[in-house]
């Protein structure tokens, strides 16, 4: 087995840091907002129940605080969705996410075992889809990109599937 040890100049390495991240599809923001709305409306409505049942006006504090909480949490979740970004290079795909805890994941195409495109009912309503990448390392799903337009998701899947085929045939 001939191991070639190429001298690599660290300054010449392609740097993943210089990537320009592509944001998610415009309708993704609307999808997340709708999702938050669907989650919070029943909770807010339920929080009125104590007031309606007991007629104590001071119990209005419960729906008030729930509303404030819902506002803060959903705002953060929507903001989190907006800072997500991904970038594709010739040999790998990078995905960065997280509002406070920033995380960047990079997967090389020649380590991808398989690619999956999935879309839930709400996602389909907004013509969105998720791309999932699986490698042999780490947890079951290595990279999951939500909030892609379904056309873009399919495009990415086909591109990566092509790349996998390429590395296999070599």
């Amino acid at each position, binding site marked *: *087995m001939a*191991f070639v*040890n190429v001298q*690599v100049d*660290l300054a010449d*390495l*392609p*740097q*993943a*840091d210089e990537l320009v991240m592509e944001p998610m599809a415009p309708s993704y923001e609307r999808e997340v907002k709708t999702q938050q709305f669907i989650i919070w409306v029943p909770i807010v409505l339920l929080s009125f129940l104590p007031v309606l049942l007991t007629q104590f006006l001071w119990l209005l504090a419960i729906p008030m605080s729930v509303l404030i909480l819902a506002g803060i949490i959903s705002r953060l979740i929507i903001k989190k969705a907006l800072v997500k970004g991904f970038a594709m290079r010739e*040999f*790998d795909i990078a995905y960065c996410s*997280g509002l*406070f*805890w*920033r*995380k*960047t*994941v*990079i*997967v*090389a195409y*020649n*380590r991808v075992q398989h690619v999956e495109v999935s879309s839930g009912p709400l996602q389909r309503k907004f013509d969105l889809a998720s791309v999932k990448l699986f*490698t*042999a*390392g*780490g*947890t*079951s799903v*290595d*990279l999951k990109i939500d909030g892609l337009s379904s056309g873009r998701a399919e495009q990415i899947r086909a591109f990566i599937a092509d790349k996998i085929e390429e590395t296999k045939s*070599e």
Partner: protein
Amino acid sequence: MSVKSANLNWKRTSPVAVVFFVFNAARQLGVNGLPAIAVVFTAFASASNERKVLILSGLLAFVAIAILSSILHWLRFRFCITQDRVLVRSGVFRREELSVDFGRIQNVNIREPFYMRPFGLALLSIDTAGSSKKEIILGGIPKPLAIHLRNAMLAKSSDDGSALAEKSDDIADNPILLSRQSKDIVIYGLTANFMIWVAIAAGAFFSTFDVGGEIRIWIMEHIDSIAAVSMVQDGLGAPAVAIIAVATLLAIFALLPLISVLGALFRHHGYQLRLEGETFQKSSGLLTRFDESLKRHKIQAMVLKQNLIARFFKRTNMQLRVASAGSAAEMGELSMALRPAFQVPALSESELPVLVNVFFPGCEPENVTFTRVNRRRLGMVTLGWGVLPPLLFTTIVLMIAVSGWFALLLPLVLVFAGLIVNQVWTKIGYAVVGDYGFIRKGFLGAETTVFPLFKVQRVDIRQTPGQRRKGLAQLSIHLASHTLKIPYVAVEDAKIYRDLALYHVESSKQAWY
């Protein structure tokens, strides 16, 4: 299946294989039926004589059924080897037919259980690749046939080594890379598991306080009939009994290393490592002989372990990890995860670099200088978030409930924790030398993982808000065997490590598996 069944030469394993099926059944029962066994045992102890006969005959019937079913299993078990595949028919009522291509075989191991050795028989276990990770075991075939099959299968499953198998059917022809004497194996037994020493230390620590007294009471209550105790007490008084009790406890703990050493001797006695083509072959075992093989290109990572005891003996235990272990575990396939790694036990300081080079050509572990992580951040975050809150809480509770003097505990424990964190910090390190990455961690000892950079599966960089301010990050490197994390790395270093690993992954034409 396109193969015509009529042309196939179906074979049966040796009748000795019945014993193998019995052992298998017994092991399954041991794992699944332990509560039932306990119930039967207690029922037996408290039963009347007639009941005892009933229970005993029930047990006998059970054993008879187990043996009968083993015989049936053996009768219904057929295998067939063709040019390029192995076929197995098994199952008594529910028939199952398995067909595995030699090309899809991951690994082949030969085991010679003690009950098969007198008959010159062996057990061939075949790991297959793919989503349906299933192991085929041919129990009770002649050993020469097992070796021949192993070589043929391994040759077919690699693209490069097709000519190798026919060359030699006897691995003994190849030069020995490493052999271990009993002394080495004993040292391995003593150093393989650090927890036995922790248990002894804890036992010694606690028995000097209270446990000794309690055990004395326990002995007085339970083994009162043993005249010796009372005689000792009469003659020498209560302190002597306490000392004897402590000694008994220590003796029990002292058994742990003995068990570990015995286990190591049974497993690794007569350890020999050989290289045939690109396949490492290892044979060992006192009663049951184990023949394991490992292809060089299947190695995902090498783990070098040196705990405190091993450091005393100046030895290092080497482990070679393959893909199935880590990734299969997360898919809920425990049986694969429990498979022990390929062990290379108790390497001396002079043997270590030689063996590292045997498995990873061009790897120079002696030239590694580890870069350390940010000490201040590691210390402050660990102490501030991990140690201080529970410590503060305990101290306050103790101060209120017991005595204000416990306030003194706070700085003492904090200093102690600080020393521990500092010790941990000295062990965390990362490096890249040539084509290999090195990551080290530990406390009193050290565990270094060495991996070819091109085998990396995925790289993550995480930053908490605090880390972002200080220009630090956590680097996670996912290998097919396991995941490595380095906390509090300078973010530039993390990025260089990532870009370098990706460069190797993307420019390498070698398959990682």
